[in-house]
């Protein structure tokens, strides 16, 4: 078992309360930061730590913070992205549910570093019960002088609010999140201007994932250099991985980056192998938006090296034979799973979640869903398979936000690695239906 920086105390009874959290070393980073560090020093530590955004894109957090515009007399905002809607991802939920004070502690220190006096946690509307947990914890933090006016006598004031969404994957995209937080439809904005210059209510804004903000706590406590010692290369620190699909022990794991994928799937400390004594067929290692990998490319790279749980190793081989760490939503498929059906399922997801403002995305995701559905139920043709590649090209790079790409790439990857299975659906229409476990009549299109 590797070192834990975030989930070390997740099983301590009562850790969701202020008192127990505090007794276990909670809020030390706030004391340290507010009493002995300048905002610039905190940004520097975060830069040294090499922390990369845990929301999916992996952009260095310290660098993002350093881009924040600081015009005189204009408020700045820190928004925590707790929209967590990427299929396969449920790590932020785990953290907020179990140790809400860790996120609040991270928000206080990060807000201090960025000079934000009012910060928000934007949480997906379905997590309403977690909103209650967070608000309770926030009340406790106010009552104990860690939020509100003149925190710990430092002169620093901070108010923290939690705001729910209403069920829209796209609101996880940072500019859609901002729109939503302003009480509007979640349509992503054109960039530039970037949120660092013009974000919430037109003011400079930083948007960070729950896990990124929580990671600031150990970085401030132990120093950025100490954090950077964990992990491998540019994948520093620990990472929360939420594992689902056909695994013996699905769940949320905090891993030290650099363990092998093999250990993660089969190791006793982690997922303990594929459920029901089956074999691994494929894996989507970083949430539904990243390319699927066939079994032989999951634990080894194309050049035969061990595949590691790092940003670099999972991407090794590019789109031809690699994937991405993404949001850490690890999905394992056993030998009985139908790749065509899953590809269709994901395409339906993106079609459902497209905000609709760019036609290549709105129409393209709809078309992909229809064509894949046709193939899936055994009514497709060989030309449909090529048609999918064509739709892909029309979406890629032609949209306001990356959702269009996120929808197109997994389809391309599935066809690249499992073309035979798509063709088999065309040549064996009846058996293709059997493989749907007799559920064809139950296919829900709406």
């Amino acid at each position, binding site marked *: 078992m590797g070192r834990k920086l975030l989930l070390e105390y997740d099983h301590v009874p009562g850790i969701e309360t202020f008192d127990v959290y505090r007794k276990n070393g909670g809020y030390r980073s706030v004391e340290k930061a507010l009493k002995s560090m300048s905002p610039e020093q905190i940004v520097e530590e975060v830069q040294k730590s090499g922390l990369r955004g845990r929301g999916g894109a992996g952009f260095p957090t310290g660098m993002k913070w350093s881009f924040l515009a600081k015009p005189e007399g204009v*408020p700045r905002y820190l928004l925590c992205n707790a929209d*967590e*809607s990427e*299929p*396969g*991802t*449920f790590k*932020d*939920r785990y953290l907020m549910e179990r140790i809400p004070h860790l996120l609040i502690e991270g928000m206080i220190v990060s807000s201090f570093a960025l000079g934000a006096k009012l910060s928000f946690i934007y949480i*997906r*509307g*379905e*997590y*309403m*019960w977690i909103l*209650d947990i967070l608000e309770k914890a926030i009340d406790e933090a106010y009552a104990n002088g860690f939020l509100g006016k003149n925190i710990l006598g430092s002169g620093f004031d901070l*108010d923290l*609010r939690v*705001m*729910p*969404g*209403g*069920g*829209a*994957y796209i609101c996880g995209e940072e500019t859609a999140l901002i729109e*939503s*937080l*302003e*009480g*509007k*439809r*979640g349509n992503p904005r054109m960039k530039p201007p970037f949120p660092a210059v013009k974000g919430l*209510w037109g003011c400079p804004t930083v948007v960070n994932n729950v896990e990124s903000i929580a990671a600031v706590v150990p970085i401030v406590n132990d120093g950025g250099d100490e954090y950077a010692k964990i992990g491998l290369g540019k994948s520093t620190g620990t990472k929360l991985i*939420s*594992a*689902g*699909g056909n695994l013996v022990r*699905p*769940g*949320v794991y905090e891993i030290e980056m650099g363990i092998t994928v093999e250990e993660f799937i089969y190791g006793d400390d982690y997922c303990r192998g594929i459920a029901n004594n089956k074999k691994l067929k494929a894996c*989507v290692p970083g949430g*539904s938006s990243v390319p699927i990998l066939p079994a032989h490319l999951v634990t080894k790279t194309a050049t035969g090296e061990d595949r590691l749980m790092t940003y670099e190793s999972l991407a090794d081989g590019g789109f031809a034979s690699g994937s991405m760490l993404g949001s850490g*939503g690890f*999905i394992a498929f*056993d030998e009985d799973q139908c790749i065509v*059906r*899953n590809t269709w*399922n*994901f395409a339906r997801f993106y079609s*459902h*979640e*497209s*905000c*609709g403002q760019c036609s290549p995305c*709105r129409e393209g995701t709809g078309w992909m869903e229809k064509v894949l559905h046709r193939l899936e139920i055994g009514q497709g043709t060989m030309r449909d398979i090529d048609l999918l590649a064509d739709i892909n090209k029309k979406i890629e790079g032609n949209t306001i936000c990356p959702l269009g790409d996120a929808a197109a790439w997994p389809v391309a990857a599935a066809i690249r690695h499992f073309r035979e299975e798509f063709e088999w659906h065309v040549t064996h229409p009846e058996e293709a239906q059997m493989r749907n*476990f007799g*559920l064809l009549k*139950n296919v*829900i299109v*709406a």
Partner: protein
Amino acid sequence: MSNTHIDLNKRHSEKPEFSPERMAQVKELMNRLPEGKHKSALIRILHMAEEDFGGWLSIETMDYVAEILNIQPIEVYEVATFYTMFNLDPVGKYVFEVCRTGPCMLVGSDQIIEYIENKLDIKVGQTTSDGMFTLKTAECLGACGYAPMLQCGKKYHEHLTKERVDEIINTYRSGQVPN
């Protein structure tokens, strides 16, 4: 994108009005936002309105919320039609939202959906004739490791099996909330 439109014929029999306690909560929410930025509270208030006024948002409810926030009704309709959590049609007392996305499908959500359809004798999107249950599907609800799952109100029911579904339905029928 939820392609929902608003059916003007569907109305509440009485004008919706928050209880004084709820109204205090709503005002508190608005007051906690910077001057002039109270529209940010819209989504949260719509959730509250849905909870208080029968689980769905009628035109009157939306107009009422617009009035409270002092914004145009269209600003509320825009939002209510965009976000899939908001029901624009009347629903049953309990709304089951079964996750149908990949990771849940891999461990049998299709079969669970079919089982509930048969058990309640309704299709996805419909409400039982006694007005108790509405069945819907949802996209990934962040419970993939505890799948299959369904959400009912604030409650997540995870690790579903047919037996577990029976139990959940019976408990709701008896007026209690299953744990």
